[in-house]
């Protein structure tokens, strides 16, 4: 049984401009000790999905339906107090920008102590000792001194390590990492990802990694879901997704990965067009305005998320054989995709 | 209600006191409302007077402001003073009215025996103390505003003012109780001027040390002769005066009631300063204060009080001695032409001007300068209410036809003025600014294009209208309150050609008519009062007819009392409350 099971999740927000349908029928599952990558452009609903798991989108203007099953209980319908006991303690989350995600007026150590003492009734000095250990375990040098640092006194990488320390100080079952490396520079990115991997391995924490970067997914995920316009378009184990992707959007994403081994002359090919409006999404397949292959029925009806093979789900009107053929020819044209 | 203020307008709100009066019909003085009554009271208690601003100076030698006089006259005893219900002076420090001899050039006054200064001086007052008091009025360190005007006629009075007390040879003290003034010429108003606070005795032996230097500090150490004294300490330092906050009067232990006609009922009088007029009016009605000191109740409240039968009796109205007028610069075209001035007199909508100050509640439309409260001492002689040389229909609201006839006489064939633009310097705040707007509108009807320069009221006087080289064609917001009820005090400074000064000038019309100058010079020396008032009455008519300035309102001042006190309105002092006649019921 999966550790976390998202079933047909819908999240929408009433705004002055209209109803924003941020998540439309997403179902995902995460197993213990595994890493699930959720990929998509900004506005694809991946962050909203992640935040909804722990109830961070329960705004007065939000409508949330579906289920998020964790430990046999539905987090969507759970009352705020019970959910809060899970949040931070059993499901922790880290965010994109570690500078803005840490409170600028409080010392880093204090912010971690606060997290511990929120869930465990431990004396201040013990919480402090655990905080220092947590800081040490994420590789922060001289953690005793860093305990008293303010966020602005630390580098970006150190701050993200501190965030991870805060998230892991309570040994959660699940770590949701929402674009954890986007704001960091490349060398630091790698270190942070390694850290997350190491912690997963050491503590057995399941990781849900939200990212727009397939390169990151390639390095550490077991399963991958590709999201677009609040929907999952393709979902598969990592190897399958990278070797035999079947959705034109996934192809586009793969083409846009900067590859260190690719020839310099080979330009990045980002997907033409821009993400759709979530208030007035296009008719039919939501990707059809940007899809180079659009079959006629894609303008009329939205395709279902259907299995192409066992464990490989694709939301596309093109026949499976056609998709395979197109992918092979794409690979021929673009050596980078090999 | 204020002497200095009427002219200089130190405080905007203070000015308003003259502004809102009530009345407009009825009695010969033109005043409506409850009549002035004095009732017998009983000893004891505290009376509280509320005011918006402060007094000007405690020092009797420097005090020159009606509100200050409400304190000065109950703490100091000038040679003469007024009972509250009279406009004629009565002996106070003096034992009897002065005797005038030598064709008016010698004035002899005997002072009462046994009047003592308050602690710490404690000794008996002598004639030398009066002599010193007047002499120090000519010391710039004291800074008296009227010494030269009324006492400059004494032989030996200095014309150059320095920072020391001069010896004036014309003031003789043949014995401890006699003071003789030798005048360089007869003066019709000298005796009346002996009621000014400058004649209140000042002990030289005590005061001289405070009078040294550039600014006398005698006011902070003054001793009293009246029934009350400003609270002080054993050394004589005043402790009862916090400028802008309050003034506490207590009984003067050395005052002998047998020497005085003041009943002095209350034990203590507190002048509380710094009130907003609306709030203070309400506090008087509720009995937290007993009378208004330096402000008139605002017009809206006045109207509500006069229409409330239970409150009406708490209000008394007192005519202001003098008038507001529009001064025309007679030294400059076009108003150097008498007919152009007369055209202005005919066209000015005096009724609309009065409306800018509250309408009939503020007073009667003035038709000449000497105000009704002068009664037989000048007003009647000037023709009373019957004299209105520029009368027009609808309550003097102006007449284009009559004005155009005058302009035609002046050479404007069309009957419309077509000369260059003219200028007026006016108040930058209401109601003065509104009055000026009415003047400009009226003049426009006969072709004038009036440019209005708005400035602060006191700047209007001290920088423009009072400085002939800066004077505009029209000063629409000037006025004069007479220091006492002698027509000379009302007309001489404003219209005698000899009084045109390069600065601090109050002859705002710069009126210099040789014939009228001669008549005034003669009247100044007339010591027979009947003749003198007759002469000044004629002078008033002549000045009014010349249209050098156009008077437009004789104002009334309202005095409001709480129900816990008896009244004591000073008829002679613009309706200030006489606290020595008021009593707690």
């Amino acid at each position, binding site marked *: 049984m999966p550790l976390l099971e998202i079933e047909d999740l819908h999240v929408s927000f009433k705004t002055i401009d209209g109803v924003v349908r941020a998540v439309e029928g997403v179902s995902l599952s995460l197993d213990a000790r595994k890493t699930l990558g959720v990929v998509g452009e900004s506005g694809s609903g991946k962050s909203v999905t992640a935040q909804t798991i722990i109830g961070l989108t329960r705004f007065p203007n939000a409508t949330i339906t579906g289920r998020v099953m964790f430990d046999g209980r539905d987090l969507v319908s759970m009352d705020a107090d019970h959910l809060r006991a899970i949040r931070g303690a059993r499901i922790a989350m880290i965010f994109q920008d570690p500078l803005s995600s840490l409170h600028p007026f409080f010392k880093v150590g204090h912010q971690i102590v606060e997290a511990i003492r929120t869930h465990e009734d431990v004396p201040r000095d013990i919480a402090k000792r655990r905080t220092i250990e947590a800081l040490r375990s994420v590789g922060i040098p001289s953690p005793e001194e860093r305990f008293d640092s303010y966020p602005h006194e630390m580098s970006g990488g150190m701050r993200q390590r501190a965030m991870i320390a805060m998230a892991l100080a309570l040994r959660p079952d699940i770590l949701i990492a929402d674009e954890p490396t986007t704001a960091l520079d490349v060398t630091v990115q790698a270190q942070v990802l390694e850290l997350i991997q190491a912690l997963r391995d050491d503590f057995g924490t399941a990781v849900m990694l939200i990212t727009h970067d397939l390169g990151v997914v390639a390095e550490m995920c077991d399963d991958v879901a590709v999201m677009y316009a609040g929907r999952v378009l393709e979902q598969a184990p990592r190897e399958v997704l990278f070797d035999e992707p079947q959705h034109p959007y996934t192809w586009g994403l793969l083409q846009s990965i900067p590859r260190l081994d690719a020839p310099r002359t080979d330009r990045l090919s980002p997907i033409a067009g821009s993400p759709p409006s979530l208030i007035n999404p296009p008719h039919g397949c939501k990707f059809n305005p940007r899809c180079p292959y659009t079959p006629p029925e894609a303008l009329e009806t939205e395709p279902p998320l259907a299995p192409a093979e066992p464990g490989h789900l694709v939301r596309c009107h093109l026949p499976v054989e056609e998709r395979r053929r197109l992918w092979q020819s794409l690979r021929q044209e673009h050596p980078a995709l090999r | 209600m204020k002497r200095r203020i009427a002219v200089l307008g130190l405080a905007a709100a203070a000015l308003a006191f003259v502004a809102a009066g009530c009345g407009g019909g009825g009695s010969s003085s033109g005043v409506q409302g409850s009549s002035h009554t004095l009732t017998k009271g009983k000893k004891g208690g505290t009376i509280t007077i509320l005011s918006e601003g402060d007094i000007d100076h405690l020092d009797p030698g420097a005090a020159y402001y009606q509100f200050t006089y409400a304190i000065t006259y109950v703490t100091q005893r000038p040679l003469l003073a007024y009972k509250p219900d009279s406009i004629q002076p009565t002996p106070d420090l003096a034992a009897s009215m002065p005797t005038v001899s030598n064709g008016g050039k010698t004035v002899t006054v005997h002072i009462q025996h046994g009047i003592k200064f308050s602690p710490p001086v404690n000794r008996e007052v002598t004639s030398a103390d009066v002599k010193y008091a007047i002499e120090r009025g000519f010391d710039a360190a004291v800074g008296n505003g009227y010494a030269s005007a009324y006492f400059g006629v004494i032989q030996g009075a200095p014309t150059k003012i*320095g920072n020391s007390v001069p010896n004036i040879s014309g003031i003789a003290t043949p014995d401890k109780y006699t003071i003789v003034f030798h005048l360089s010429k007869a003066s019709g108003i000298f005796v009346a001027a002996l009621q000014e606070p400058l004649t209140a005795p000042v002990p030289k032996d005590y005061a001289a040390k405070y009078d040294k230097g550039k600014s006398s500090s005698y006011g902070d150490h003054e001793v009293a002769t009246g029934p009350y004294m400003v609270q002080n300490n054993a050394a004589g330092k005043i402790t009862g005066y916090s400028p802008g906050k309050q003034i506490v009067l207590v009984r003067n232990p050395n005052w002998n009631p047998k020497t005085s006609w003041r009943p002095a009922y209350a034990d203590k009088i507190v002048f509380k300063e710094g009130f907003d007029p609306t709030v203070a009016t309400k506090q008087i009605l509720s009995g937290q204060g007993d009378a208004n000191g330096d402000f008139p109740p605002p017009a809206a409240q006045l109207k509500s009080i006069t229409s409330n039968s239970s409150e009406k009796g708490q209000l008394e109205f007192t005519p202001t001695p003098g008038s507001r007028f529009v001064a025309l610069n007679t030294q400059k075209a076009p108003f150097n032409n008498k007919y152009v001035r007369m055209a202005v007199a005919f066209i000015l909508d005096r009724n609309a001007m009065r409306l800018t100050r509250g309408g009939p509640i503020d007073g009667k439309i003035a038709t000449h300068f000497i105000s009704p409260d002068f009664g037989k001492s000048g007003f009647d002689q000037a023709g009373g209410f019957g004299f209105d040389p520029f009368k027009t229909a609808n309550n003097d609201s102006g007449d284009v036809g009559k004005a155009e006839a005058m302009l035609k006489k002046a050479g404007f064939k069309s009957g419309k003025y077509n000369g260059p633009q003219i200028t007026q310097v006016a108040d930058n705040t209401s109601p003065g600014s509104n009055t000026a707007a009415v003047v400009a509108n009226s003049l426009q009807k006969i072709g004038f294009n009036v440019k209005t320069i708005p*400035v602060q009221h006191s700047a209007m006087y001290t920088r423009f209208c009072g400085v002939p080289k800066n004077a505009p064609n029209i000063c629409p917001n000037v006025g004069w309150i007479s220091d006492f009820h002698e027509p000379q005090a009302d007309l001489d400074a404003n219209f005698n050609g000899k009084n045109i000064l390069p600065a601090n000038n109050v002859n705002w019309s710069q009126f210099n008519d040789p014939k009228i100058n001669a008549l005034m010079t003669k009247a100044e020396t007339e010591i027979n009062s009947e003749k003198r008032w007759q002469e000044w009455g004629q002078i008033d008519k002549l000045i009014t007819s010349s249209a050098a300035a156009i008077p437009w309102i004789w104002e009334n001042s309202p005095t409001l009392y709480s129900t816990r006190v008896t009244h004591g309105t000073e008829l002679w002092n613009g309706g200030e409350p006489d606290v020595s006649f008021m009593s707690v019921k």
Partner: protein
Amino acid sequence: MGAYIVRRVLWAILLLLVVSFITFVIFDVFPSADPAAIRAGRNATPALVHQIRINLGLNKPFYTQFWIYLKGLVEHFNLGYSYYNSESVKSEIFSRLPATISLTIGGFIVWMLIGIPVGVVSAIRPRSIFDRVLMGGSLVAISAPVYFLGLVSLFLFAKGTGQLQWFGAAGSYVPISQNVGQWFNSLILPWVTLAAAFAAFYARMTRGNLIETMNEDYIRTARAKGLREAKVISKHGLRAALTPIVTMAGMDIGLLLGGAILTEIVFNVPGVGRYAYNAITNSDLPAIQGTVLFGAFFIVFANLVVDILYAFLDPRVTYG
């Protein structure tokens, strides 16, 4: 920090110099009344006006007058003497400071106690009925003229003049050293009146700042930690939202210590503001100069205090 403070103090002194100089220039250039003529009185002879002009030093060019003033100020901390009644400006201002300080500090406490909670309550439920009523009310309080508000409060709640005779009347102020009870009672209405507009303004500021802060990433982090919402708001939200408000409060206190003119006038609180008002109506330059200088001093001083305070409140700010 020490060097910074020294530098700031030097700047403050320079600023005060410039302010007094400008006051002198304004008085000299613009058509204000002639103080010598006012002091002498309307019936005075030119000789007297002339001598008084000399005595007041008004015959000298204004830069000489300014120099004399500065010398007196620097050497003896002498602010000169009123043209109107010859009283020492310094002692007049000092004697009025306790009233102004009482009014300001009390008013400050009232407006913070009302403004901050109202702002927080509104921010927690933006656009709710509650929020709309509170913010609508605050708009009324901001727009209501102090003078009008003062009169209404006196006619409703003051002893003597009020419908309900609860609190001290206008002019009932006594120094705290004289009678604490009466001091307090006399200041209740002035405090509330003074505080009304400020409370409303601070409520709106608090609301705006808090709503903005509650959208910050670190608030999301705090929630993700599992903190109670009340603690998220009171600790993480307010800590950031109130910092700019504390500094603004410092400035407002500085401004008011220079004199809360309208409140002092309507309630007859004998403070610096009323003194300033009288000085202006009397064209009393030394008194105007003194109050301007005092007002400027408090503003400059409050500025300095606020800047230093900011370094303690916001660890990101440092002064070198």
